[in-house]
């Protein structure tokens, strides 16, 4: 019986070839490659919006012969945050999990790098905005794939009639549908005068000062418009600066024109404020307008979503991004990456945006002119400027540019709105700054 002997050189060459083939090969469905995939998506609050992502995933699963299980996890009661924490602790769970804003960085050590997925997506869809890079990248590594589902800009949503009547501002002329903004005069000074006029007219701006996301986001954008940051990108505490003082002075004036209970507002308060018809402006994605469309159509017909006012250091708007991450302990990483590619194709993104009534916002530069924002109404064109189609404002997030793990603490503890409230309640400026400095030093824990 003849036996062919394998030389050491042949063995090494064969191993290297097969390893290279395995690494470079795209995800190809095979009898054993398919397997199972579990996905934890964010449970959309727009009725029917989940169906779009389910359909896209099911179509992919059918093509790839993968058994998929989708769980829709709500953010009410922070159920999604609890799930992320539990799965990170147990080192077990969904292969793909939707993570809001700060969580890719918070779980950076446990997430599978997504550079290979992102390279292709960036080529197709264009560059992601700066906030997504800040929240989704660490040391050149993409921690997760930006999700259009749940991502949003929390810009002003104004009442056309009330702004004209009380402040003499035509928001449709500032931000015309289908055209670039003509909003050079839309500055923080104009904004403050409008706030005062609307307050006098009995329809104050509905801007909260509580500790939840909507309140913090507005404060973040206004602070950034003054160039005010509590911690810089290198992690140095920069609380005691003129920029922070100016931002606090501005907020002190603004608070006197806001509803007296603004300190107790949560994320639903501004929605209720707009829908009840009591206010001339709120800072929110189109969800408030969408609720008004259903419950108070006469209010919805007068709503116009537009850009933030500019401050001395620029025009900033809060952008909150969701991500889809894959744990490093996931059992089917290649299938996860494959479905994330499918979910991030332009047509899939458009389908999900339409299903959400224009609420969802992709981060890629080529996808800010989808039809849904041009056509949604009433009034027609109300959402045209929602996705920042003319790059009129810098998209950012409160507490940036601090290193994300520190910024998360500033954001979660609502340090900005607390500072504004303390100063408004009569605490001396230097005491407020000293308190904030102490808080920021505490956030440096590693």
């Amino acid at each position: 019986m003849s036996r062919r002997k394998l030389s050491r050189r042949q063995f090494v060459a064969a191993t290297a070839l097969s390893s290279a083939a395995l690494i470079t090969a795209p995800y190809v469905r095979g009898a054993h490659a398919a397997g199972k995939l579990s996905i934890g998506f964010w449970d959309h609050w727009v009725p029917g919006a989940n169906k779009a992502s389910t359909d896209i995933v099911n179509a992919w699963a059918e093509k790839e012969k993968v058994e998929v299980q989708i769980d829709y996890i709500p953010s009410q009661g922070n159920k999604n945050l609890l799930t992320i924490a539990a799965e990170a602790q147990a080192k077990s769970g969904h292969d793909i999990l939707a993570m809001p804003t700060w969580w890719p960085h918070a779980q950076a050590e446990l997430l599978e790098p997504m550079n290979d997925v992102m390279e292709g997506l960036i080529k197709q869809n264009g560059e992601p905005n700066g906030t997504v890079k800040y929240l989704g990248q660490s040391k050149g590594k993409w921690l997760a794939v930006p999700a259009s589902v749940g991502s949003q800009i929390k810009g002003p949503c104004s009442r056309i009639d009330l702004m004209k009547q009380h402040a003499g501002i035509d928001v449709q002329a500032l931000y015309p549908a289908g055209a670039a903004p003509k909003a050079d005069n839309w500055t923080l000074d104009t904004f403050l005068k409008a706030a005062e006029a609307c307050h006098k007219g009995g329809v104050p701006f509905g801007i909260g000062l509580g500790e939840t996301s909507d309140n913090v986001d507005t404060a973040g954008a206004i602070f950034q418009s003054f160039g005010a940051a509590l911690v810089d990108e290198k992690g140095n505490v920069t609380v005691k600066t003129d920029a922070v003082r100016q931002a606090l002075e501005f907020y002190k004036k603004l608070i006197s024109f806001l509803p007296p209970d603004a300190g107790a507002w949560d994320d639903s308060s501004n929605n209720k404020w707009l829908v009840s018809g009591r206010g001339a402006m709120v800072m929110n994605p189109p969800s408030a307008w969408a609720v008004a469309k259903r419950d108070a159509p006469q209010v919805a017909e007068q709503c116009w979503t537009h850009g933030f006012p500019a401050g001395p250091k620029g025009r900033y708007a809060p952008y909150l991004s969701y991500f889809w991450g894959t744990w490093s302990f996931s059992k089917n990483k290649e299938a996860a990456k494959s479905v994330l590619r499918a979910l991030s194709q332009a047509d899939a993104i458009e389908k999900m945006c339409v299903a959400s009534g224009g609420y969802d916002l992709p981060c890629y530069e080529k996808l800010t002119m989808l039809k849904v924002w041009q056509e949604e109404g009433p009034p027609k064109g109300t959402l045209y400027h929602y996705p920042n189609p003319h790059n009129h404002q810098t998209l950012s997030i409160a507490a940036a540019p601090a290193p994300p793990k520190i910024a998360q603490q500033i954001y979660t503890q609502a340090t900005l709105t607390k500072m504004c409230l303390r100063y408004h309640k009569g605490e001396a400026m230097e005491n407020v700054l000293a308190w904030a400095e102490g808080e920021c030093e505490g956030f440096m824990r590693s």
Partner: protein
Amino acid sequence: MADVALQPNRGAAQAARKRSSLHKMLKRKSTVAFLMTLPLILLIATLVIYPAFYALHLATLNKSMQRFVGLSNFEFLFRRETFWLVVKQSCIFAITAVVFKALLGFIIAHFVHNIPAKGQRKWRGMLLVPWVIPPAMSTLAWLWLFDPSYSAFNYTLSFFGIGPIPWTGDAMWARFSVILVNIWVGAPFFMIMYLAALKSVPEQLYEAAAIDGANWWQRIWYVTLPMMRNIIAITTLFSLIVTFANFDIVRILTAGGPLDHTHIFATWAFRIGIEGSDIPLGASVSLFMVPILAIAAIFILRDINKRGNEA
């Protein structure tokens, strides 16, 4: 030969003795009680003891949970102004709520006790409703009543020219609101416990006190209260533990605001641990309840034990 012949019998006798001792052991009340409580013991071990030790372990790790840091997390907390604010508020919240729950429960229990037996059951059922509804649900209703902009209370008060009151927007009113809701939820528990204790006080004692010319206050002070002391102590301890560890009421009503002035241990631990992704520090905050409650438990249980020995 005889020995050999006797061997099987001895074995059988031993086996019979063993069987009978096993039988006796199984017949013992304590063994039966242990076996019956074993599922619960296992459940508690899995759901309480293991997580408690895991929390201890977590509290000794650094923020990224990669390094053992001993008691550094506690040291860090002791230097934080907000932590001491939370300690103060937790004590104010728990003590005030428990005192008022006990007082209201005691008064209502007396009223219910004096209702004729026929209609008493209906009142008992109705008064238990706040305690029976899941607090997360009932607190949502309270949230709407206290809503910053659309408060039903403020609407009603406006007819009398009062308000609007910032129920959840001002530190003092927000503390008042969370304590009020906690009292509303918890008072029926005290009421039902005190009612049971009142029913077990022998009628002869009141008759003897009446013969001695005691007025209603003296009857309460010298008869009712001494007879209820143990149940009052146990109920207070139990309620103190539950109130200290409260989460849902504060979380739903104020989420700790305004300016952290209603945060208690559990809500602040959640803010830090889950929302702030600093699980070790969150675990340290929640563990800080343990020594406070342990001291309270030692004093109260020692007192009960002492009275038991005296009796």
